[in-house]
């Protein structure tokens, strides 16, 4: 089971500033294990979606080229304090996680 992720959403002017930290190793599948010399199997978040009060606002694809424990920041115009932002991710092994934050 995936570790919890962190999400924070605050109002900045007329847009909500959303910052998400996902806990994930983001293995490219190209890196070798220093001890065994074997390739470490690919394990990365392949898809991220975000929604504001259930309406999709962002949908992204990622490769192993995103840093370990990916950070994602985006801004939603027209959101207001008290709205709920949900972020979901799915990785290449089918593991998934989601988190929700209330815009402050």
């Amino acid at each position: 089971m995936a570790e919890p992720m962190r999400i924070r959403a605050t109002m900045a002017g007329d847009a909500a500033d959303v910052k998400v930290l996902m806990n994930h190793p983001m293995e490219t599948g190209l890196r070798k294990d220093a001890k065994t010399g074997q390739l470490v199997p690919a394990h990365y978040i392949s898809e991220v979606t975000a929604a504001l009060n259930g309406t999709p606002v962002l949908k992204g694809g990622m490769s192993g080229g995103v840093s370990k424990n990916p950070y994602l920041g985006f801004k939603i115009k027209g959101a207001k304090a008290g709205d709920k932002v949900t972020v979901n991710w799915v990785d290449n092994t089918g593991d998934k996680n989601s988190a929700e934050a209330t815009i402050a």
Partner: protein
Amino acid sequence: MNALRRNVLKGATGAGAVAVAVAAGLLKPTQVLAAPRSAFEAKDLAGAMSGLGATGAAESKDITIKAPDIAENGAVVPVEVTSAIAGTSSIAIIAEKNATPLVADFDLMGGTQPFISTRIKMGQTALVRAVVTAGGKNYTATKEVKVTIGGCGG
């Protein structure tokens, strides 16, 4: 009948991740990602650009890439892309010399502003390229990032 079964199986692997999102009520089944998975597997810039459907994208000064001039650690390079192009609907980030150059691609909808901030890995000094889709057209911009320690090897 067998051929049909084959197609269903093939479809199932790729659709797995999407199905989860559909089940979560976030994606409507009609929506598809701008970049197919194959774009992420492309081994060179040309492959990544054609995977995005952005071959021949026009250079644009309206795209701002904020990234360090020199990245001490290639494993974590902060990148921010802002587009001032009206109607921006997607932003993709490419590290040109990475083994698989396409790093991420984001479709923006609803009230999401044309801004993405994330952190990427870079194997070596290279151009970071942003590809923006707006009104069915593609625009691109680059910024060089010097990498002192690569972040893709072991």
